[in-house]
């Protein structure tokens, strides 16, 4: 049971799980049952923030960091000489409940190294979820990692108890996956995804017919891609994400900037720092796919296979399509409003409501949270005098939007003062 010795296990097994980036606990709404503990709230709650700035919502932990596989990018690969340990399913269930009752966490996110074989491992993970739901009457959030290669039956069991299942693809192309993870192939990851997706659809259909039909992974499935461990382009990555969203109905694709945990392995690039900026741009692009009605090939394509690291992908898109601007804030339809740089979904809602009352001007927009510094080149509204992207030309607008970062060293400021771009502004 839980005691002082658990401290060391926790240190190892939380440390081993920390590279999995997904933290979301949202997506399920479940009320507590009578006499039970816990609920899942649809909007998700962060209970703390780690010093790396990431939200801590779940007890993210590995059941064990022993592994029979040898994936090049993973700290837990079998050829690494590191301290290894395992929790029992009972210990994990206990720890979850004790943390949950103190309001430390929103729920459990459990993964594991592969012990003996995929089925053996998956079975132990399912046991944890089952213990929580039945013995502890726990109604909080559970996310289980599906072990690549686990049997269909075990994945079906997992989905019965969990709110979300995920299988990590990690490496975006089959070839590169084979090179870096010789024990895995695309089939071993994509197959469980397909099983999960079919089960989810089936359960939804059943529940339309009779409401008592069992839920299956009600909060859907997600996956993670490692960025920068291979030469795959953002175009390849976003095409894959977009296919996963539309064909497999994934809730989230997470992007994780590669951290060189095994720098001795020559199959991997030597990086000094994780590619955090690229990761950030990919998340922005991912938002455009999911909430802004963009298609992957509008953001990146064969001519522009990688995202511009200097600028928001929406700005880059707008600069490539100056003929669509300026947009009239007081008339444009919602989908076009969403495509204006500097305007987010929340501002679009406010604009749609407020323009029924008055013709909006730039000070209204500012108050509604529109980033006018960015938006002013792409809109017209009452009393706005600045020049738009058509009049100024995209290259110049690009320079202007980069301006802020360029200022910083005195040399740069000096130069900027005599730059024709500044003159164009006057």
């Amino acid at each position, binding site marked *: 049971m839980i005691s002082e010795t658990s401290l060391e296990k926790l240190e190892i097994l939380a440390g081993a799980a920390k590279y999995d980036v997904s933290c979301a606990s949202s997506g399920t709404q479940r009320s507590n049952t009578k006499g039970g503990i816990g*609920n899942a709230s649809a909007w998700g709650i962060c*209970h*703390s923030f780690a*010093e790396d700035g990431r*939200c801590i919502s779940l007890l993210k932990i590995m059941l064990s960091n022993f592994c029979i596989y040898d994936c090049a990018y993973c700290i837990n690969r079998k050829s690494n000489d590191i301290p290894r340990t395992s929790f029992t399913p009972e210990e994990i269930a206990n720890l979850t409940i004790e943390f949950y009752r*103190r*309001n*430390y966490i929103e729920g459990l996110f459990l993964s594991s190294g592969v012990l003996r074989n995929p089925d053996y491992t998956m079975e132990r993970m399912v046991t944890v979820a089952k213990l929580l739901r039945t013995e502890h*009457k726990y109604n909080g959030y559970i996310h289980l990692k599906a072990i690549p290669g686990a049997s269909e039956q075990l994945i079906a069991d997992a989905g019965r108890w969990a709110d979300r299942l995920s299988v990590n693809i990690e490496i975006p192309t089959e070839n590169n996956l084979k090179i870096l993870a010789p024990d895995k192939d695309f089939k071993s990851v994509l197959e469980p995804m397909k099983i999960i997706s079919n089960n989810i659809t089936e359960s939804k259909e059943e529940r339309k017919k009779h409401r008592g039909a069992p839920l299956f992974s009600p909060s859907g499935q997600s996956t993670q891609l490692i960025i920068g461990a291979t030469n795959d382009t953002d175009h390849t990555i976003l095409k894959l994400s977009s296919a996963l969203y539309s064909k497999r109905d994934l809730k989230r694709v997470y992007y994780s900037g590669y951290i060189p945990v095994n720098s001795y392995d020559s199959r991997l690039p030597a990086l000094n720092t994780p590619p*955090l900026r690229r990761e950030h741009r990919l998340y922005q692009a991912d938002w455009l796919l999911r909430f802004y009605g963009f298609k992957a090939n509008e953001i990146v394509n064969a001519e522009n296979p990688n995202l511009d690291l200097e600028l928001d992908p929406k700005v880059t898109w707008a600069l490539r399509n100056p003929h669509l601007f300026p947009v009239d804030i007081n008339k444009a339809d919602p989908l076009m409003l969403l495509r204006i740089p500097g305007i987010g979904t929340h501002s679009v809602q406010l604009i749609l409501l407020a323009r029924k009352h008055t013709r909006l001007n730039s000070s209204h927009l500012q108050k509604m949270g529109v980033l006018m510094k960015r938006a002013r080149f792409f809109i017209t509204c009452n009393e706005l005098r600045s020049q738009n992207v058509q009049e100024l030309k995209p290259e110049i607008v690009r320079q202007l939007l980069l301006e802020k970062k360029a200022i910083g060293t005195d040399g740069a400021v000096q130069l900027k003062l005599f730059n024709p771009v500044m003159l164009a502004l006057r």
Partner: protein
Amino acid sequence: MNVFAYDNTFEGLLTLVFESYQRKHFPDEILSGEGSQPVLFASTNTIETDERKAERVWNGIVKHSSEENAHRIYRVFLADMPDTPMLVLKYIRLIIDSNKNEETNFSEPVVVEFNKLHQKVCKEAHRINGFVRFQKTVEGSYYASFAPIYDVLPLCIPHFRDRFADQQWIIYDLKRNYGFWYDLKNVSRVVFDDLKVNPQNGQLHSSLLADDEKLFQQLWRQYYHSICIQERKNDKVHRQLLPQRFWKYLPEKGFLSL
């Protein structure tokens, strides 16, 4: 100068609105609570809270805008800042005096200011939902204390009541010296005079804590440190998302040595 005083309750403030309309003059300043200093050279009108009058104002708001808007006014009231009552009064006047629904008229400065504050209050309540830390007591009940900047505990209670339905708990606002107690059936408001709590960290006296409480705080702290990726440390974002004012009540931020 026209000064109104009320008893710092929401019903009291709605009554004040009612009285202002009836007397056809509106306050230049609103004093809340008993402790507030009367303004020099001004006569103060003390408003008696009257539930029926308050209800009429509530219904008026619903009629001129929406039920959700009336709830929003309540939440803004809970901001509990010196100038909140005046903002609420101005907002209600705008709503009631117009024959259109003004709640979405973001070209009105009052509407913008009101909604900004509303967002802040909701954000604080959401944070409290996450950052509350229960300590298990010897009797097996759970205790948490906090000092939210706005008076948001009433907004958090339904969430805790649903989530922790099978455990007795108390959540206490140290700043305002009151809290809520759930006894497995009902939630009631409580005030303690002799609370054995260390104001520095919100911790109960150790004689009141369950045997394994310290262990779980340690485990949580261990977890918190193990989950951080050193290569990605980002102090600025960290402090933005977890403002320092919360730290002293969080076991993971270190009042226990490992």
